[in-house]
């Protein structure tokens, strides 16, 4: 709470709730603030409330309770067209009956801008997204990627300070998506605009954002920069949702400072870092990233905790190897190793020893 009352916050959600039917809350007590120039991503599975938050910010949905402030001013009662927020939609929403230039001209015309000034801005915006040659085309004559660039240019042409993007790359193929991810991030930083980006693609969220807000069940589960989010998930939902993750379930036996002893359901006792377990006897899920697990005994670091495992499956994925193991009675334990010359390929059926550092192993809520 104290965090959200930050004075240099540009966008603020304060205790925002949203219900469509009066019975269920789609957004439950949302508090969020982001400073000017930040690229924030709302990440979550569908139905988690992230798009609703975006729509409330854009003005297309009204908050059932709470306050949304833009630059210190409550915008709850300001209609969308007066908010001055640029928006990029998932299906681009380029006006099909207008050319690219007319699409870009539209926000400038409604702002009663002169013709020469309009043209100048349109050209600049098109150049910005490298679409200078396409001014006379109609949206239907453009590819998906080109349309999205135009949609981006249109959202930026009237120089909004805040731009919202609702899964803008969802309909594009992987390669194009990666190119555009990079371009959007660069553009946002170069122009210094504040961006709220909604996606359900965690890679997108991690690569693009300054901070990521992970949504689930109408709440922000964790709000953190990408690295922190990945490496230090605060609860088992985030750990599961972001990246690949191995989960072992058990009961906390003892907590000694920075180390918790967890008795797994299969009987083994392992060491883990207590994150949101506080006392012995609690059920917990222990989370270990696949790439933090080591099986080469020579490289195993001091203090690493070891466990026996059986190799079930070896998958060659090019840059990495993905090996599925049976660990502590579970068949879905995965380790990832880099494809290096000295890296051995594990043979299914062989018995090995795996190990990890206790700080990489996080004991989370059950």
């Amino acid at each position: 709470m104290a965090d959200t009352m930050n004075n240099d916050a540009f966008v603020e959600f304060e205790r925002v709730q949203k219900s469509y039917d009066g019975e269920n809350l789609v957004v439950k007590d949302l508090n969020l603030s982001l400073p000017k120039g930040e690229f924030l991503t709302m990440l979550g599975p569908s139905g988690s409330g992230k798009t609703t938050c975006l729509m409330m910010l854009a003005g297309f949905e009204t908050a059932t309770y709470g306050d949304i402030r833009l630059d210190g001013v409550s915008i709850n009662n300001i209609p969308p067209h007066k908010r001055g927020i640029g928006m990029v939609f998932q299906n681009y929403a380029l006006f099909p009956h207008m050319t690219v230039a007319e699409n870009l001209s539209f926000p400038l015309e409604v702002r009663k801008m002169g013709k020469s000034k309009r043209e100048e801005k349109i050209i600049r915006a098109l150049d910005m997204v490298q679409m200078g040659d396409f001014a006379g085309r109609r949206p239907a004559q453009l590819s998906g990627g080109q349309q999205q660039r135009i949609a981006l240019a249109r959202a930026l042409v009237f120089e909004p300070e805040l731009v919202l993007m609702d899964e803008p790359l969802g309909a594009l193929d992987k390669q194009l998506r990666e190119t555009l991810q990079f371009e959007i991030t660069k553009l946002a930083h170069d122009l210094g605009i504040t961006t709220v980006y909604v996606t359900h693609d965690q890679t997108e969220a991690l690569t693009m954002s300054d901070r990521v807000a992970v949504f689930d069940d109408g709440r922000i589960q964790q709000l953190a920069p990408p690295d922190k989010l990945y490496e230090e998930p605060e609860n088992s939902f985030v750990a599961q949702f972001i990246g690949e993750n191995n989960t072992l379930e058990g009961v906390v036996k003892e907590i000694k400072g920075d180390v918790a002893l967890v008795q797994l359901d299969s009987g083994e006792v392992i060491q883990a870092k207590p994150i949101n377990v506080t006392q012995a006897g609690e059920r917990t899920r222990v989370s270990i990233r696949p790439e933090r697990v080591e099986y080469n005994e020579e490289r195993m670091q001091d203090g690493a905790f070891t466990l026996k495992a059986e190799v079930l499956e070896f998958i060659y994925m090019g840059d990495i190897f993905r090996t599925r193991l049976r660990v502590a009675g579970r068949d879905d334990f995965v380790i990832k190793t880099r494809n290096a010359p000295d890296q051995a390929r594990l043979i299914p059926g062989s018995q090995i020893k795996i190990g990890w550092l206790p700080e990489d192993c996080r004991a989370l809520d059950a």
Partner: protein
Amino acid sequence: MSEAPTAQTASSHAAEARIADAAHTGPMLAADGTPLKKSLNRALRVQKMRALALVAPLLIFVLVTFIAPIADMLFRSVENDIVSETLPRTTTMLAEWDAKSTDIPPEPVFEALYKDMFFAAEAKLHTRLGSRLNYELTGTSSLFRKSGRKVEDMGEVYQDQFEVQNDFWKTGENWNSFMASDAWLAAMADWKPADGRQPAFELRDGIASTLPATSAAYVQYADFIQNVDEKNLYKTDPWAVIYSSLHEDLTGENDLAAYSGPASAELSAAATAAATFETVNFTEAFAGIDKDWTTLEVWQTIKVYSPKFTSGYFLNAVDMQKSVDGAEMRPENQQIYGILFWRTMVMSMAITLSCILLGYPVAWILANLPTRQANLLMILVLLPFWTSLLVRTSAWKVMLQQQGVINDTLVWLGIVGTDDRLALINNQTGTIIAMTHILLPFMILPMYSVMQTIQPTYLRAAKSLGATNWTAFWRVYFPQSIPGIGAGSILVFILAIGYYITPAIVGGTSGTFISNRIAYHISQSLNWGLGAALGAILLAAVLLLYYAYDKIVGIDNVKLG
């Protein structure tokens, strides 16, 4: 293509190379070396044939039951062979007569008219021609009917004189003996009524050059007796017209001496006698039947309408008439079709416009409601379709009349006084109200289906870009809904322009359409030619408007779903 080359021989590898590198090797080749275009066409042809076979039943059905009758009907708007077929001799003779002269045609024309009328009266065709020409000149119908009755007696003078001169002329058998060929006479001798059709009459060789008029008349007579009357020609006595033709031939410049066939003696004797026969002046005879035969107008009309095809119906349909000086406007008080066409266009546009105004919001609501409620409302829109057109129109009669529901309500509310109740029916207002109601679904449905495809994100995008609700609607939503308006308008306008039941019931005199007039000509005045011409003009107008619409809005922009 991608799999084929692996199994190919070296020669086709060369072809493959050409496929891959067509920039400098002329036409592209398929894997087997034939030009790619050719093999593509071959591959497509089978598909096309299959597609054609699928639509063939409907195509044939449409051709037979729709296109062909329409084409036949439209053909009637120019067809005019009734005049030249009923009066063949007269129209031929009239060709030499100057219709602009102040004199009525000379005696030979009247003589030709006598023969034509005689045959026409026997076949009872003269009344049909009379009604046909009556469209052009009132009174012609009764003139022809009257003349048809009396024309039979006109030539009897000749028959009597020939029969007095020689009994030979009295019987059909004698006539046949020299008019007919020997082969026919032999065939006829063997013929019994039980055999069915009589052997077709054949003219004797040489008789046609000796007695041209008689031969022509006799052939026509024989054909009629054999095929229409179905009497035994062998035993039938000739008509008066044959005798007058014979008189004409015998007193003319025909070389009777060259004829040596049967009855040549009787013929030369008759020829001598005929020179002294009492003659008939056909001009006076016709004038005796009706003075109208001596008026220029009748003859001008016959002459103007002699050709096999006429523009007369079309001229009539645009308030003009055909005269000897060519086409000219009808007198002011006879002009009705121009006004009707104009009224039909203007009212159809008014109906289309009111359908747009009323239908657009409904379609918008339908497109933006949740499916369940939209379907429910859709039933209300479609409900009129499930009710008889006649019932709906009659209901409007109840609603709109002076003592009707609407006027009663207005009077009760005090909006209009009892004495000045609104005239809502039997005028244009009534037609527009009733037809707007009846055609509204045709406007709503295409608009609805187009609006359904306009995603709400467009409006959101427009608003996020700073547009007010109105601007977002007008600049973003409305342009995208135009295809629906276009489709609806075309449907409604074309339906309205050809409507006739509703205008007939609620339109009175000032609210009727051109279609009512067409219906009148088809079913009451039986002037099908004029009806067809009006229909053709209507069709042309619709096509023209369609073309204009295509040029202005673009037919690609019309979406029916």
